[in-house]
């Protein structure tokens, strides 16, 4: 098990190198950082030289990448030019923490609701509630995120108009240190609800499918034939097996949430990774883009590894050698 984990971690190294190389090349060839200076009247040759020196623009792309990765593995992702030359690594970590502030509670709520709805729907297949959950799930899957987000904001603004008061803030992040506990909650609720609405829909469908497969299996019938009470059949014999395929989905969804949600964070003016990534890409900020790519790749790889190890723990048929 430990040897397997170590081997898996080592195997991520070439994966990361390959992944970042591809992104580096794509970003490097997608635009010229000097182009913006071309129309700048006040810029002299030294400004051009600074940019050329910063990105090694006088060297071939593979060499630029080599320089970047050597610094990156030492924790130096270079200055984020589009953000006042702040350290790109530190900036990304700070924004990642902000994304996590909504990603973690959203994910916990999603898991709880999706498991409950999925199991209930499967056990009561074709019941009214099953149809209701199915209908709402498809609504949730089909409607784009911004519809929910804007809808929630609109409701708050109606309330502000009608009652002169609204329970939750529609934009911006407030922290417990600066604004107190209540304001922190009031600013976090809407983005969290939006993320929950979007992901619960698909996750509950996966959970329902996994549970349906399990409760129609022979060993569930065996458990019933033993006279085991219904609840125990569902939870101990059914859910235990139906959670195994969910682990991969959770890992991928959680990694994606932590990597920042572009639409939700943008609409709620949340200072997370999502808006940062959009601005880094549109401003051709190579260092910032690469720092974000590095972090999101690490997240995906890490959570995949956790999922694989969790498989072995949940399913005795899987042994790591």
């Amino acid at each position, binding site marked *: 098990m430990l040897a397997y984990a170590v081997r898996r971690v080592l195997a991520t190294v070439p994966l990361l190198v390959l992944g970042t190389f591809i992104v580096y090349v794509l970003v490097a060839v997608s635009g010229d950082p000097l182009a913006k200076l071309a129309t700048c009247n006040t810029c002299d040759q030294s400004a051009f030289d600074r940019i050329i020196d910063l990105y090694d623009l006088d060297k071939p792309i593979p060499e630029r990448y080599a320089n970047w990765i050597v610094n990156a593995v030492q924790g130096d992702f270079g200055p984020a030019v589009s953000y006042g030359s702040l350290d790109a690594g530190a900036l990304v970590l700070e924004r990642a923490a902000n994304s996590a502030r909504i990603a973690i509670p959203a994910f916990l709520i999603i898991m709880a609701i999706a498991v409950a709805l999925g199991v209930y729907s499967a056990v009561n297949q074709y019941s009214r509630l099953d149809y209701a959950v199915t209908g709402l799930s498809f609504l949730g899957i089909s409607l784009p995120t911004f519809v929910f987000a804007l809808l929630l904001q609109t409701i708050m603004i109606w309330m502000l108009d009608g009652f002169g008061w609204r329970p939750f803030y529609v934009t911006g992040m407030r922290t417990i240190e600066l604004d107190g506990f209540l304001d922190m909650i009031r600013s976090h609720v809407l983005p969290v609800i939006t993320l929950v609405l979007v992901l619960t829909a698909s996750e509950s469908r996966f959970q329902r499918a996994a549970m349906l497969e399990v409760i129609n299996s022979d060993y569930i019938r065996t458990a019933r034939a033993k*006279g085991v*009470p219904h609840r125990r059949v569902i939870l101990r014999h059914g859910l235990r097996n139906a959670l195994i395929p969910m682990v991969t989905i959770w890992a991928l969804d959680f990694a994606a949430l932590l990597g920042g949600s572009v639409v939700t964070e943008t609409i709620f003016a949340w200072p997370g990774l999502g808006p940062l990534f959009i601005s880094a890409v549109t401003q051709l900020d190579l260092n910032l883009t690469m720092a974000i790519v590095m972090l999101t790749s690490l997240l995906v790889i890490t959570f995949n590894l956790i999922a694989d190890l969790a498989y072995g723990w949940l399913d005795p048929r899987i042994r790591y050698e």
Partner: protein
Amino acid sequence: MTAPLLEVEDLRVTFGTDDGDVRAVQGLSFTVSEGETLAVVGESGSGKTVAALAIMRLLPRYARIEGSIRFRGTSLLDLDDDGMRGLQGDDLAMVFQDPMTALNPVITVGDQIVEAIRTHRDVTEAAARDRAAELLDLVGIPEPRRRLDSYPHEFSGGMRQRAMIAMAISNDPKLLIADEPTTALDVTVQAQVMEVIRRVQEATGTAVMLVTHDLGLVAGTADRIQVMYGGRLFESGDTDTVFYGSRNPYTLGLMASIPSAVGRTAHRLEPIPGSPPSLINLPEGCVFGPRCAFATDACRSEPELRVVDAATGHATRCHRADELPALIAARAAPREAGA
């Protein structure tokens, strides 16, 4: 004579589907006495497994079950879920066809047996484990105590079926229903598992209802045989009577299609032509009529199950039951002469 252990009367099981009603079991009546072994034989789709599941009340909710099933005087179809659970796995136990899928893959064999015991008996975990080890020993699993902590995938098919049997008999059932217990196993293992069932029956005195498509398998085991076809009982009687004095063309067809390892192998096996009827669109008259070599115009009406020998309780569902021995002799004669 006391009342039989299990009394099934006019059992009808119907599944509503989009294509029409599937009438899986049609007016099935039979009894099982304490300690006896009843073999229920028939092809796929003859309704034997559905009947077994109906007795265990393990059919899906959308199945319509009518008639009466009385177990030790209690009407099973009138019991509420809690009452039924009190019997399931206790006095009334079942072994399933496919041991590869019938055990929960993520729970150890020991825990699954312990669960069966502690669902019905108020004993400590340790006592239940001791009992589980005894049971594994009884069904012939070596090193039973160590094997308690194995997962089902660490067992071979035969061992899994032994473990299933151990689990089923953990509360000394009065009736053990074994649904095709050997079908999914290698031939060499089949005999071992049948031997385990026999040994278990000796040790616990349980009655066994053995559901199988394999007539050969039941010859040495069953006290009585019941042949089913198209959801109906076609013939029932003592094992010897059915084997040597069958009065039903379907039973005779089944026996003609058993390969024999000894004796004359000069003539070919005689399969029953055609395939079992669709349970949605049953043929008019005798349901076996379209496949029967002896069918006549009389067979356009459905024959009743009737007793041909009151002393042994031998009953058959065939219009021509009385002429059948003569007909068989007439058919066999040319072949004997030719050979």
